[in-house]
């Protein structure tokens, strides 16, 4: 009974992530890649992403503060976009796209704004996924 309730909670949580467009289609691909040979693939990938992405974001932040024309900025925005898009982080990726567009046009304020929103979306994603994986772990124990 308790596990039914848990499953429903998990299902709802998952559905919300897609309905709110926090995650998109690509995330489903990751779920598909999880199988008997890689039973923890999803969680491992997410752990890796949230270990690396904050570092990249910090570099981007610092670059924007100090030196807008820092050539590394472009490279790090690209890197962040690549990994975010690969895990299906929809809103995060959209803000990175915004930042890249602004960067191309030399719009430093626009770029800073996009990076602020990017950080917010990144935090939201992390919190939501943490809760989601917590429940998933619980159901494995049930």
């Amino acid at each position, binding site marked *: 009974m308790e596990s039914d309730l848990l499953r429903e909670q998990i299902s709802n949580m998952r559905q919300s992530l897609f309905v709110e467009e926090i995650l998109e289609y690509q995330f489903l691909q990751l779920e598909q890649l999880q199988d008997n040979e890689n039973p923890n693939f999803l969680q491992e990938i997410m752990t890796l*992403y949230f270990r690396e992405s904050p570092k990249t974001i910090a570099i981007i932040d610092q670059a924007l503060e100090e030196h807008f024309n820092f050539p590394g900025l472009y490279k790090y925005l690209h890197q962040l976009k690549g*990994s975010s898009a*690969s895990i299906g982080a929809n809103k995060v990726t959209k803000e990175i796209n915004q930042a890249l567009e602004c960067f191309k046009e030399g719009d430093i304020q626009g770029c800073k704004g996009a990076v602020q929103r990017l950080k917010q979306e990144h935090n939201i994603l992390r919190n939501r996924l943490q809760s989601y994986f917590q429940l998933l772990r619980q159901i494995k124990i049930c």
Partner: protein
Amino acid sequence: MGAEVDHICPTGMSGGSAEGNDKSEGFRLRPPKCLGRPYHNGGVCQIIQTGLLRSYGVETEVVETGEAVVELIASGATFNLIIIEMLLPILNGPETVRQIRAMGAQGKILGITTFFDERDQQEFLAAGADEFIEKPLSPEIVIPIIRGLDN
């Protein structure tokens, strides 16, 4: 790209389904070989890309730089599919493609980038790549390519 959310079946949750194994069935006879070359491996991109290809039965080899790709091809290794990133440190994507085509590499070459740019696309295709796509690598892209290789 908004997700069609009607009724998503949480396949990841049902403990161990056999569904995942059927995918590679059609390709087991002659597994296509793919050479992937990730730039600045934050790891995530490359792991997912490799995972996707391997789930379709593709033998995958990953190297770090454009130079390494060139060396590998020069050493006589052959691949049905080579995926090359746009942004590479010294020998960039298109230049890598040029060099391996010049050495006679015949496989399908796919240029991949994080942020689509028409000039990048032109550069890649002019260098001898067959296709140019924006990440992430998805089944929609991979499956037709693998089918094409199988023929």
